[in-house]
């Protein structure tokens, strides 16, 4: 029992750390000492100093400010994407789970097909064909990731569809819509939220990975993946171009991974 309490306390702690991170990303401009796009050709590829805490890049931009602004892009895209795939997956999975029969089979065949592509390969192919950029990255990653939520929703819906309280609600005259919004959705929500929490880190890595390959967020917009991509050419002379953006991704992903793991322990009682 005390173990569970301790876990809950830790969950609150890590949740507030993650909240702080998001807050930091929102108010980044207040902390950034420089304009992330401003170049300073007098200070090109200079190591960390009091003027530039994390050094400067190949055109003299302040790495520290770019990382702060990059947090906005990374976190903003991550949460937008998660919201998209959550809504899309929930809607499609709900239709499949509630209707069954031919509609269900058709939806499942489509998800099978999407799942037959290794996810990164599929995302790269879509962005590659449609052209690099933020919009196509969001499109590609949502095409690839929605299936997970559709399948999960479907399985959860099917699991409770025939339980007694649902029958009772039906008997009491609840229509299909009310059944979904009042009885089914609240019951599957916690499992879906746990899945969302588990996926934050992975989604951030997927976005940063595409940007690193030059397919996602394009320069000069600061994003951690594309900062690493630009920085790698200067590895020998200016390793700080690699160290700080990489450390930023690693730290933030690690925090959200811990959040996901603890969320599963605390919120999903079925998982042991």
């Amino acid at each position: 029992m005390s173990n569970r309490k301790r876990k809950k306390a830790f969950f609150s702690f890590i949740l507030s750390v993650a909240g702080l991170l998001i807050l930091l990303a929102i108010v980044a401009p207040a902390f950034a000492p420089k304009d992330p796009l401003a170049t300073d050709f007098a200070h090109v590829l200079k190591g960390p100093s009091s003027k530039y805490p994390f050094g400067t890049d190949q055109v003299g931009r302040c790495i520290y400010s770019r990382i702060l602004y990059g947090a906005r892009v990374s976190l903003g895209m991550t949460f937008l994407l998660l919201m998209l795939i959550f809504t899309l997956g929930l809607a499609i999975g709900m239709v499949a789970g509630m209707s069954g029969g031919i509609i269900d089979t058709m939806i499942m065949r489509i998800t099978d097909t999407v799942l037959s592509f290794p996810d990164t390969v599929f995302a790269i192919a879509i962005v590659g064909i449609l052209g690099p950029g933020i919009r196509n990255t969001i499109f590609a990653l949502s095409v690839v990731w929605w299936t997970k939520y559709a399948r999960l929703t479907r399985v959860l819906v099917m699991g409770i569809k025939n339980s007694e309280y649902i029958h009772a609600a039906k008997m009491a005259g609840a229509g299909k819509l009310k059944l979904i919004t009042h009885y089914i959705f609240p019951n599957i929500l916690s499992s879906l939220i746990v899945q969302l929490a588990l996926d934050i880190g992975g989604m951030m890595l997927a976005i940063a990975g595409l940007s690193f390959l030059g397919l996602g967020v394009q320069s000069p917009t600061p994003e951690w993946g594309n900062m690493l991509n630009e920085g790698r050419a200067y590895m020998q002379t200016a390793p700080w171009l690699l160290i700080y953006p990489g450390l930023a991704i690693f730290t933030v992903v690690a925090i959200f991974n811990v959040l996901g793991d603890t969320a599963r322990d605390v919120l999903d009682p079925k998982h042991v």
Partner: protein
Amino acid sequence: MKYYLLKRIVQLMVVMLLATFLTFGLTYISPSDPAEMMLTSRDVIPTEELLEKTREEMGLKDPFILQYGNWLKRLLRGDLGYSYSKRESVAEVLPQRIFMTTRLALAALLILVVFSLGLGILSAIQKSKLADYIIRGFSFVGISIPSFWLGLILIYIFVVKNRWFRITDPYAHKSIILPAMTLAIPLIGRYVRQIRAAILEQYSQDYVVGARARGIREGEIIIHHILPNALLGIITLIGLSTAALLGGTVIVENIFTWPGLGSMALEAITYRDYPLLQAYVIFMVWIYVSINFIVDIMTQALDPRVVIRGGRIGE
């Protein structure tokens, strides 16, 4: 079993067919003009008149379904089209690339299996001791570290700072170590946890408790009782890691300039060389789907407890 096998094969074909449809559909809606690409690749300056004629010749004016049908027919005959950027047929470009990527993926898989099994077992045996905490710490770092950053760090440490490796020649034996490690480490992090959990679960099973009660030494219990049961886990693990390995090769090959399929795909994107990209996607899907198929069948054959209902394992 026979019925199950047949059903799975039919399912496999349907999924492959839909995958080719999706792949072709994607390139069909792409913003660039194949006729123009074709002419430029032959050093012909594309005039509007010539473009019209080439479009006619290439069948680009046909309705979508007809174009897809023709393309599929050629694909089934093994004709993958002509690569605009390499200026040779895709079928000639592929083999060498496939060879390089397979080498890389297999090396990574070897590292992956050895380390996740070794560390997973060690961590389970030493549960709640120092070694367990260290291994779990490393596995956590492995999960959270972006592979592209890991690769760059490895290059910085082992190539730039301490010239232990050279990565300029991908055909030298030694140069496979760093890319394979980059590919494997994030996955090791993930699977060490799973193997640790699986072994701890076995530990509490009656047959282990019974063996211990009969006075059998702990080491023997692990080798004779727990490991054979863990074998199944390894096979599942290989299946699960396929997608990540295949997807990961793009980033790793890009960092280490490894001349495999991943680099090829990125070149194809840069040059808008769609036949090459199509071949890449279809090949990847094919490999992925087949490996999962084999893994499913093997799990089924090796574990009598797996019950098949409705053609899907474990549902």
